[in-house]
C-alpha cells in the first residue's frame, strides 16, 4: 500500500561545497599573507586593460600575480602576460563564472608565501559570478563610463556581492556624457556605503588613490594576522 507523502526537514545550503572551499582558500590566503582581489564586470568594461595597468605598476613595489577566468574563446591571460607578472589562465569552457574549486586547482604549486597581491579576473558577466564566493578579500565590480549610469540598478545583486565599485575608461566620460553623480547615486541605492573609485587605465588618472587603498588593505590584513 502506498503511504501518504510526508515532509522531512533538510536545511542544506545548495552552494555549501563552494562555500566550504572558499573558506579554506580564505584561510590559506590569510596564512600566506597574500591579499586577494577579484574582479567582476560585463564583457568590454575594460577589465583586462585595468588589470594589466595595475599589475604593471604594483610590480615595482610588490610581488603580484593573476589568475584569469576565460571562456574557451578568449585569451586575456596572454594580454596580461605583457605586465611581466606571473599570470595563469583558468579556461572555464562554456561556464559563465569561476567557482572556488577552480581557483583552488589553479593555485597548485604556486607558492602563495611569495606573493603580496593575487588578482582573480572573473569571466565577463554581471550575473552568474554573484553567487560564488572565491575566498577573495576584496571583490571589485567594474563599470565603464560607456555602459551607462543605470547599470547598478539593472544588476543590483552583483553590486551587492562586491565590496568596491570602479568606474573605468574615465578618459571617455566627457565624450559619452557620463553622469558620474547619477551613477554614484545608483550605486548607493543598491549598496549603501560602497567605496567607489574612478580610473582611466589609459591616462592613469585615479590610479594612485586606488593603489594606496589596496596597500592600506594589505597592511591592515597583515597586522590583523600578526596579532
Amino acid at each position, binding site marked *: 500500500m502506498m503511504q*501518504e507523502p510526508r515532509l522531512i526537514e*533538510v*536545511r542544506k545550503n545548495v*552552494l555549501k561545497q563552494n562555500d566550504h572551499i572558499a573558506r579554506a582558500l580564505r584561510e590559506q590566503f590569510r596564512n600566506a599573507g597574500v591579499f586577494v582581489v577579484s574582479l567582476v564586470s560585463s564583457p568590454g568594461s575594460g577589465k583586462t586593460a585595468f588589470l594589466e595597468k595595475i599589475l604593471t605598476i604594483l610590480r615595482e613595489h610588490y610581488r603580484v600575480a593573476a589568475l584569469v577566468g576565460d571562456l574557451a574563446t578568449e585569451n586575456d591571460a596572454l594580454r596580461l602576460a605583457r605586465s611581466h607578472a606571473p599570470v595563469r589562465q583558468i579556461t572555464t569552457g562554456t561556464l559563465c563564472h569561476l567557482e572556488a574549486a577552480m581557483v583552488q586547482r589553479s593555485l597548485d604549486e604556486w607558492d602563495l608565501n611569495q606573493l603580496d597581491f593575487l588578482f582573480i579576473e572573473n569571466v565577463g558577466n554581471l550575473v552568474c559570478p554573484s*553567487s560564488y564566493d572565491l575566498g577573495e578579500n576584496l571583490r571589485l565590480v567594474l563599470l565603464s563610463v560607456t555602459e551607462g549610469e543605470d547599470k547598478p540598478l539593472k544588476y*543590483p*545583486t*552583483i553590486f551587492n556581492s562586491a565590496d568596491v565599485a570602479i568606474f573605468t575608461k574615465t578618459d571617455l566620460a566627457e565624450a559619452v556624457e557620463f553622469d558620474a553623480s547619477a551613477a554614484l547615486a545608483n550605486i548607493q541605492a543598491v549598496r549603501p*556605503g560602497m567605496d567607489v573609485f574612478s580610473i582611466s587605465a589609459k591616462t592613469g588618472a585615479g590610479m594612485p588613490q586606488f593603489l594606496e587603498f589596496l596597500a592600506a588593505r594589505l597592511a591592515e590584513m597583515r597586522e590583523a594576522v600578526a596579532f
Partner: protein
Amino acid sequence: MHELSIAMSIVDLAQQEAEQRGVRINAVHLKLGALSGIVKESLIASYEMASFDTPLKQSRLVIEEVPVVIFCLVCKVECELSTIQMFCCSQCGAPSSEIVRGRELEVTALEVQS
C-alpha cells in the same frame, strides 16, 4: 546562465538525502533569496532538465521566494525591501547595507514517500 549547474547540485543533494533515508522524493522545497543571483523561472526549467535522467524525474521543485530584509541602524528594526534597487528603511528612509535575509539558496525540506 548558471541555473543549470545550481539545479544539478539541488538534484544531487536531494538524491543523497533520499538514498540515506530510503525514500522516494515527490518534491524538493527550496528557499530562494532575492539576492541569491538565481532566476526562479530559469531554475524551475533547469530542474526539469537536471532531474530528467535521475530517480527525481517527475518530482517538483517548490520554491519559496525570500525578500531582502535589512536592519535599520536608526530605527533599530528589521525592514523588508519592496525592491532590491533601493536599500532603504521603509520607515525613516535611512540607507542600510545590513542584510538580515535575502541571500538564501537552501533546500529546506523534501516531500517524500517511503
